[in-house]
């Protein structure tokens, strides 16, 4: 199977002995087969003598995976967790949202038992978080326990866009009242 050939699902494109199975492929009986329609591409992998073989297709279905950085809108807050609607995964907007949850212990890295959800997030905030697990049957579990994670966009009680002051405070530009949030550090 030469490179840059267009293949359909099920076509054999290589063998496990000579290549590593990558995106768009699967293995069966020691053979690597395509699982989507697209072009065959082989790439070098550092520290491995085998090349990785992938099938490049026109469309990648984006689903939150463990470790993905996501943007989510806070929908509801309780004392234990904040429920969010995951709207973007790795910079790509999703057509239909997934439900996510940020639990009290995943809001920040230090003093996790003293976290007050209402002082970290409010409904309507846009939060950058990382997916830490597939969670329970209803929502993914997310975490904002890193400096660059947290609220990236929030609205004050007066309806203005909040301006970050420190990692835990944001200020309303109109009333100059400060509100507590777990703020994402933007570089």
């Amino acid at each position, binding site marked *: 199977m030469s490179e840059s050939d267009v293949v359909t699902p099920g076509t054999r494109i290589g063998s496990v002995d000579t290549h590593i199975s990558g995106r768009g492929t699967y293995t069966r009986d020691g053979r690597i087969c395509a699982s989507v329609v697209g072009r065959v591409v082989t790439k070098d992998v550092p520290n491995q003598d085998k090349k990785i073989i992938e099938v490049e297709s026109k469309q990648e279905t984006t689903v939150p995976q463990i470790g993905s950085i996501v943007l989510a809108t806070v929908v509801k807050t309780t004392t234990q967790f904040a429920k969010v609607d995951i709207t973007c995964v790795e910079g*790509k*907007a999703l057509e239909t949202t997934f439900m996510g949850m940020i639990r009290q212990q995943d809001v920040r890295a230090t003093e996790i038992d003293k976290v007050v959800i209402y002082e970290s997030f409010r409904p309507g905030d846009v939060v950058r978080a990382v997916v830490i697990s597939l969670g329970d049957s209803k929502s993914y579990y997310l975490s904002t326990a890193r400096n660059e994670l947290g609220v990236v966009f929030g609205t004050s009680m007066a309806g203005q866009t909040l301006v970050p002051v420190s990692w835990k405070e944001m200020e309303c530009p109109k009333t100059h009242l400060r509100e507590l949030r777990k703020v994402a550090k*933007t570089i």
Partner: protein
Amino acid sequence: MKLEASADVIRKLHPLEFYKRFLPEGIRPDGRNLNKPRVTVISAGSLTTAEGSALVKLGSTSAICGIKAEVTIPADTEPQCGKLVLSVELPPLCSPNIQRWTDSVEQNSSLEVQIEDILLKTNVLNLEALCIKDSSAVWVLYVDVYILEHDGNCFDAALLSVLTALTNVKLPEVEVNEEQIVSIVEGGSTQSLELNHYPIPLSFCILDDKLLVDPTSEEEELSSTCFTIVYNNRGELCSLYKPGGKHINDDILEECKQTTLNRTEHIVKLMKQANEAKK
């Protein structure tokens, strides 16, 4: 503090803000002017299993209408009139927001009532033309609309598909014998239906206090109110439908009525062309 992200992401997170960047310039994200409806494509008669059919596309919204004719006994109160039974369905395949058949029951019912009101109350079709034999046999037309793609303004697409389908219905010639059995005349002629008038709709919405013509589904969701005006090819106002929503001024309504009226000729022409192409 601004959210640094691609246009897609902003569109998803803050759709109203996204629109506010376009509307003051007088255009919408899909490139249209605020008062421009989407390109309308009408095709007729492509379904061989139906007596009449039509497919209407308004941009990414498409509706297909199939009409099947059956013979039935007329109602006692109207022994010379045929019947028209309408049903509109938004199947789950038309939109990511409709995930089960039950999700669209409200919309289906609303569209059915709206369209039926226009067809029957403005007398689009002479139901007497569907009579086969006084008091014993009449045609009943089952008009079924399926919205195949929902990107806003399903009503316009649905009504136009019904009208076009009605204009290309071909009823076979039938005869009734002494035992009241109706049979098709072999090699008989076909009967077409004449519409008394063509009620042509146009839907509008108000988004951020600006008037938009022919809204997409994203615009419908963000709007403060949506309404429809229907004028026929004789310049008569057939329907005004504003089901709640935010208040609007009289002058906006007048503007919309004029816009709808100006469009009727173009649409009727498209419908006639579709039928010609079928022949």
